[in-house]
């Protein structure tokens, strides 16, 4: 009954246990979110004499840095536009045409793949397809020395990697625009095209803006794709910052460059929260809404849309097939003898990386899941001083580009009093504070659906606080906990942008090994590693889903949260 007492006290206002938990959380947030940022800014904006803006102005005045900055913005804008366009077409096709159910499932699978893959899977497949020995460039077109590197392939790879985010954000939005609105416009004499322009598209504008910003931020922060595909002629900020640090051992220069990244990232964040956030038309009347009209697209247009989406899907599947084949042949493009040699390599030479990654992911997963649920509960259901501030601070590392977070950690934990460089703890901390916010937001969204009267009903029936928590609240929060677990695990397996600064001889990561393989041009092991990561992610998230389904009744539905 000790736990029951603890739970009782936890619930009552201003109780010591909750105050203790809040205090511990603030300490952790101060150490792992605020302190590194302060250190980063301090390092970037100081010289021997103290605080100065000189490094920043010097960086801005450098031609090469300005070029990287402009390139980053150009790439992010193009990815935002193209990805939103793709995402909208996919969402519109699924929600508004008579696409057969099987095709829709195929679309869902193909859009899910990039989300659970290491970030540069698409890039590697691009090299296999369009590189000097690429399947299309070399084998089909007979080109020699085709160059895959540059803006266009980076743009294509990032668009394919990130458009599923736009698809996932836009699909519920389109579904939310009831068919009755479109039918109403029809009945007033509009043509289909006019209805699309004036009703459907107009109502989706906030969603489109949101999707654009989402992709803009993702592309701005993307480190792996440009590192592999951008080449020397198209430098962008995250890769420049990385090369500054690893190539020239100039930590301060890297810090300054990452600060340049902070400006557009900050602007996008503010836009998302203060402009788009307020303009949501989507009709939430509480009444059962009319199902989406399937009559709003002319049959020929529907067929064209489906053909377009199917082509894109086939292309994605083709890229993943290339990856699989490359991992199973001696040398892709030259010697197509089937072999398991690459897998032998990753399970011998690569074994330490696999072990390290799995250990880090498996330790970070429960910590991140628990952290997400606790913070989510505190933020959604309790009142304490500094609650809104905590809500913002917990989101910081999530919203910042990984390069900034990684360099900040590198600077902050490289010296006493917090010497963590070279440990697994620094990587785990990075993942927990960077990827748990999804769990937090899911918990908050879930708790907002659970009326307080549910708890009161349990009390009125004689249940104690602990009984109420165990039998009612715990099963209801469980889906959010598992969502948090999945996201932290997937990201721990696939992320690289922040943690590439944090690996060491003692602790390294699969994603870092893939990158090393790519630079050494040992493409086979890189492909094998990628396939392995995808398989592990699919298996683990599958198991998590199965366990969750066993634990909860079908009466619950998890609110959709991006990320």
């Amino acid at each position: 009954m000790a736990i029951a007492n603890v739970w009782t006290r936890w619930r009552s206002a201003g109780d010591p246990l909750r105050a203790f938990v809040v205090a511990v959380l603030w300490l952790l947030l101060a150490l792992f979110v605020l302190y590194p940022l302060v250190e980063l800014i301090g390092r970037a904006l100081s010289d021997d004499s103290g605080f100065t803006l000189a490094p920043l102005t010097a960086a801005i005045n450098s031609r090469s840095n300005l070029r990287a900055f402009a390139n980053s913005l150009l790439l992010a804008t193009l990815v935002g536009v193209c990805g939103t366009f793709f995402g909208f077409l996919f969402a519109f096709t699924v929600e508004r045409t008579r696409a057969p159910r099987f095709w829709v499932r195929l679309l869902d699978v193909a859009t899910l793949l990039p989300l659970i893959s290491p970030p540069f899977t698409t890039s590697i497949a691009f090299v296999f397809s369009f590189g000097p020995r690429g399947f299309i460039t070399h084998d089909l077109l007979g080109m020699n020395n085709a160059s895959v590197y540059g803006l266009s392939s980076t743009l294509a790879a990032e668009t394919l990697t990130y458009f599923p985010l736009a698809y996932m954000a836009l699909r519920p939005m389109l579904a939310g625009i009831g068919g009755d609105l479109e039918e109403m416009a029809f009945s007033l004499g509009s043509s289909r095209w006019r209805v699309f322009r004036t009703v459907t598209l107009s109502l989706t504008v906030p969603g489109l803006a949101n999707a654009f910003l989402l992709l803009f931020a993702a592309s701005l922060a993307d480190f792996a794709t440009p590192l592999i595909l951008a080449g020397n002629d198209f430098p962008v900020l995250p890769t420049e910052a990385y090369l500054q640090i690893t190539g020239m051992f100039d930590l301060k220069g890297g810090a300054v460059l990452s600060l340049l990244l902070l400006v557009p990232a900050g602007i996008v964040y503010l836009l998302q929260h203060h402009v788009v956030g307020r303009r949501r038309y989507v009709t939430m009347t509480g009444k059962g809404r009319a199902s989406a009209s399937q009559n709003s697209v002319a049959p020929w247009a529907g067929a064209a849309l489906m053909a377009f989406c199917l082509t894109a899907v086939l292309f994605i599947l083709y890229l993943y097939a290339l990856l699989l084949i490359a991992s199973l042949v001696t040398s892709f493009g030259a010697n197509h003898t089937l072999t398991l040699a690459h897998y032998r390599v990753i399970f011998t030479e690569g074994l330490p990386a696999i072990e390290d990654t799995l250990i880090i992911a498996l330790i970070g997963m429960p910590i991140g899941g628990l952290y997400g649920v606790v913070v989510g509960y505190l933020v959604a259901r309790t009142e304490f001083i500094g609650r809104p501030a905590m809500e913002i601070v917990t989101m910081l590392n999530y919203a910042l580009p990984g390069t900034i977070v990684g360099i900040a950690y590198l600077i902050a934990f490289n010296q006493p009093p917090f010497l963590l460089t070279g440990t697994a703890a620094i990587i785990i901390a990075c993942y927990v504070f960077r990827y748990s916010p999804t769990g937090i937001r899911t918990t908050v969204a879930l708790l907002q659906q659970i009326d307080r009267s549910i708890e009161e009903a349990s009390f009125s029936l004689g249940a104690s606080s602990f009984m109420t928590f165990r039998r009612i609240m715990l099963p209801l929060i469980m889906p959010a906990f598992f969502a948090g677990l999945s996201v932290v695990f997937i990201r721990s397996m696939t992320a690289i942008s922040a943690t590439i600064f944090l690996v060491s001889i003692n602790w390294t990561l699969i994603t870092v090994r893939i990158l090393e393989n790519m630079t050494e041009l040992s493409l086979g092991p890189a492909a094998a590693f990628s396939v392995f990561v995808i398989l592990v992610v699919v298996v683990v998230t599958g198991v998590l889903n199965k366990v969750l389904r066993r634990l909860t009744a079908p009466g619950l539905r998890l609110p959709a949260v991006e990320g």
Partner: protein
Amino acid sequence: MIERGEPAGIRLEGVSATMRDRNRGEITAVRDVDLDVRPGELMTLLGPSGCGKTTTLRMIAGFQAPSGGRILIAERDVTHVPANQRDIGFVFQNYALFPHLTIFGNVAYGLQVRNNSAGEIERAVAEALELVGLAGFGERLPNELSGGQQQRVALARAIVIRPRVLLFDEPLSNLDAKLRVSMRGEIRRLQQALKITTVYVTHDQEEAMAISDRIAVMEAGRVVQLDSAEALYRRPASAFVAGFIGRANLLHAIVESVNADGAILDVGGQKITVPAQGAPGAPVSVVIRPESIAIVSTDTGLTGVVQSRTYLGDKIEYEVSFGGQMLNIVRFNPAEDEGHPPGTTISISIPSADVRLVD
């Protein structure tokens, strides 16, 4: 079901509730309320939204602590007893069914908390579901049921534990009109059969009149009148009560003279009598029910001009200007040739017994 002893009474002594509101600061939702709910009685708290009726109910349940006063259930002071030890059944406006439990699981929950044996629970749940007409629904989930069915489950869940006190918080407001009427009959029938002391919160006066033994009309955090439905209707203590229970004409008048039978009032030159005393020359308000005014063919000295006439089948409603004020008159079961089109001057009679002086 678990058998319980005699029904318990509920007493509120000077109960107040102050709450902190983010926008309005400190607000007093309930002021110094005294209530005495008799054992086995169904008492309704009736009033417009924001009058403090739900807050009062939540304090009886123990979801909210009063800022002053005492609450007694069966003569035991429960003011500081948590909700889970008060032995209550609560039916929420939004049903508050546990979404992850089946109907059986929902109804059984309170019994499982009380550590009853599995066989006993099964029997009691089956009986409770039978009582609310949902036998055989045990394996379904709440979201597979209609609103009316969900409310029945909430009812079964509350009564299966045989609480000493049953509390309803606007239980029918999410249902459609027809269902509301049949459900309120069902609630009344169950409450009578089980003899559970019940407090019922609603803003619907018809609902309150249909099911209550007594009604406490609340206004701005206070109980302004507590009586049976009939007494409230016939003898409203204030214009507010008169307007809230049924329809009422409120007339402003001046006391002209007083005699043994009562007072003679002047309404814009026309004289009506009221069986009450008053100081001559004082301004007063009186309430007259629309259906107690008769349209007559003889000269009564009281005349009005018809402003509008609405035919509603079983009745005709008139708006009549009378002494510079507006009077609603309802004529039930109208004769086929009953005319009085707008613009005609009519003679009316107002029985003095039906005129009531209010504050």
